[in-house]
């Protein structure tokens, strides 16, 4: 084939351009560590990478959501256990009041019981991450200990009111599945969320007030009827403790299930990242070899061109 002077240079320039462009692409892959530099590099791989990116982001979000919800459940469990202990302590205090050696100390025990009631209300108003744990879907301190007008049934006028609601806060840590995040107040504290507190108030009234509604003088003992009444309150309080324990156990079971799910998601994430990496990340060893090959080819081409292009008959004439 007849080769023109211009064509020799044109083909040389085209070969140089092709090699340099390949080298630049390999350098970019090596520098960024990414196989896909442009959308058009490999559309099939691009589709897989985009799909993996979405799955990774979704799975990460699910995992993070579960971690967040688990934290709340841990705190919820902790507070429920605290409540159970507080109820048990109240029951023990009542038992103490019935003890023969404490017969003359109902007023003193009433004072201690009042403190326990305050503590119980404070625990029932527990917060985590801006939520009142037992307020349902309301966003205010749900329980309030207050004194209302004294009556024959309630001579102290003490009352614990519930300002929350009995709705469950729910979350959707995974697609489609709604999970209860909170514990309803009535589950823990009985009817309308106040039954337990009413029991404690009743015990307080028995200890601090006489049957006629007047305040019990210090060192006045409880009557046999009052002791009987107090005795009946203790198993009711212990029933509440068991109730709280059951709810706590259910929460622990839910937490454990979520933990397993979180671990599964973590494993899934690792697999997804590996799948993504196979398409998106550059094989650095392969790239380094390709780069070396490209450099050698470029050098060979430059040497060949420098020999071939500079020779013509004019040089030897």
């Amino acid at each position: 084939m007849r080769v023109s002077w211009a064509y020799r240079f044109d083909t040389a320039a085209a070969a140089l351009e092709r090699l340099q462009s390949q080298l630049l692409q390999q350098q970019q892959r090596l520098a960024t560590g990414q196989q896909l530099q442009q959308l058009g590099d490999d559309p099939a791989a691009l589709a897989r990478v985009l799909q993996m990116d979405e799955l990774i982001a979704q799975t990460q979000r699910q995992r993070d959501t579960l971690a967040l919800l688990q934290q709340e459940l841990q705190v919820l469990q902790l507070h429920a256990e605290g409540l159970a202990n507080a109820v048990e302590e109240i029951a023990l205090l009542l038992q103490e009041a019935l003890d023969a050696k404490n017969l003359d100390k109902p007023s003193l025990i009433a004072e201690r019981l009042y403190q326990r009631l305050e503590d119980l209300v404070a625990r029932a108003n527990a917060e985590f991450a801006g939520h009142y744990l037992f307020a349902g879907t309301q966003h205010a301190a749900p329980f309030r200990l207050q004194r209302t007008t004294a009556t024959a049934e309630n001579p102290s006028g003490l009352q614990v009111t519930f300002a929350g609601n009995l709705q469950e806060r729910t979350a959707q840590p995974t697609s489609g599945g709604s999970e209860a995040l909170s514990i309803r107040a009535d589950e823990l504290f009985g009817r309308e969320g106040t039954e337990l507190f009413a029991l404690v108030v009743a015990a307080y009234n028995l200890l601090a007030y006489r049957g006629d509604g007047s305040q019990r003088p210090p060192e006045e003992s409880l009557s046999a009827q009052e002791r009987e009444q107090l005795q009946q309150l203790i198993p009711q309080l212990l029933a509440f403790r068991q109730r709280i324990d059951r709810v706590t156990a259910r929460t622990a079971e839910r937490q454990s299930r979520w933990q397993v799910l979180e671990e599964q998601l973590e494993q899934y994430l690792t697999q997804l990242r590996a799948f993504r990496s196979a398409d998106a990340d550059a094989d650095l060893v392969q790239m380094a070899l390709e780069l070396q090959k490209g450099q050698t080819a470029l050098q060979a081409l430059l040497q060949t061109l420098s020999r071939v292009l500079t020779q013509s008959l004019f040089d030897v004439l």
Partner: protein
Amino acid sequence: MSFRVLYIARSALLAQQAALDITSGNIANVNTPGYTRRRPVLVPIVAQPGAQGTGVLLLRIQEFRVRYLEQQLRSTTARHAAAESDERVLQRIAAILGEPATDDVGIAALLERFLDALRDAAYSPADLSRRQLLLQRAEAFAQALNRIGQDLEQLRQELFGQAQQQLDALNPLLQRLAELNLRRASSPEGSETAIALADEQARLLDTLARQLPITTTQDERGMITVSLAGHVLVSGGSALRLELRQRLDDASGERSAQVWLVAESGTPIASVPLEQGELASLLHHYNVTLDGQERTTGFSLVRELNGWVAEVVGRINAVLAQGYGLEDTGPTPPGRALFQGTTLQTVRLAADVAADARALPLSAAPGQPDDGTIAWRLLDELQQPVFSGGRTARGAYSAIVTQLGTLQAQVQERRQWLQMSQQQLEAQRQALEGVNLDEEALNLIRYQKAFEAAARVASVAASLLETLIRMGS
């Protein structure tokens, strides 16, 4: 003994000198684009049949032009130029989208950040800081869409400007081709002038072929007729003008650009559908790829993205319309939306929600500020395959990006294949038409030696004459 030998020597000197001139011209133009090599056609001078030769004559200059190859090369050039332009435009578009994003600036990444903030707000819907963060992320998402919409529209206008510029540059070429036709017709065939004019014609046609899928025919006088999509652009000494015109469809609002043939008087003759050439590529991307109102089945990125934005915004707003804000107490939901506008360029945060994060309707019932049911529902909706094509919100966007990637890969492949094809054709053309320096060096020696020999003949003839004259005296 006569003076004939001197005449023969003279004719040889003149012919070899002309051949040397032609060879020098070839060497001088070795790098001139469009230049085809020339060869002197030398013939013996014969006074009459059977008579002794009386010297040599430069009959004509031969040019090496292979018209069928040039035609084929121009057709390939038009397709290659279109593919190159397609590749450039698609690269620009890909850069605007910024996918696959390595940082958090792409649409997909911003959508994920919005979903993360939505999750946080769903978890603590009464928390104002989380509501505020959700609004910020929603705004960042909308702004990214706006930026992409504006950049794509800007690119579209830029393409129109480029098409306009290129068309403006083509009209003088057409005019020049018509002038060359007239000059070519009046130049003797085989003369240096005729060949130089043919070179210029070829150069102009090569330039024209990059932009337009022209076809050419040549008559016996060397005049070239240039046609475009069945319309004659240049014929003899006259040329039509090309104009770029925009057409606005009142019904759809679609604005398209077309190339029109215009008579010298300025009267439009016909619109010309272009399929190949750089101009066709620019107009295709203006009329289809970047046209949001495009109604054909071609891949319109802006239309696809607008459709996606409308669907995402529609679904988000539909879910939130069932929700209540922190201050809402009425029995029916206020029907608030998060976004207004349904296209890349118009999507914005809804004013009432943007002004007060409390108004974000995340709860399923009034007066239940810590209920994030609606927010969870929205999060779920956006992650479920309920969008077009049975995809998720992000999946639907990824499908558009993948479609763009596939198109880019096809264009790259086509461009590479056409480049190879063009190089092969160019090699064939160069093999026939191009100048080879070594060959010219040999010719230089050949004609130089012949010139020296002719000079020697003249010298010998002069010496013989001198001898004869001396004998006579």
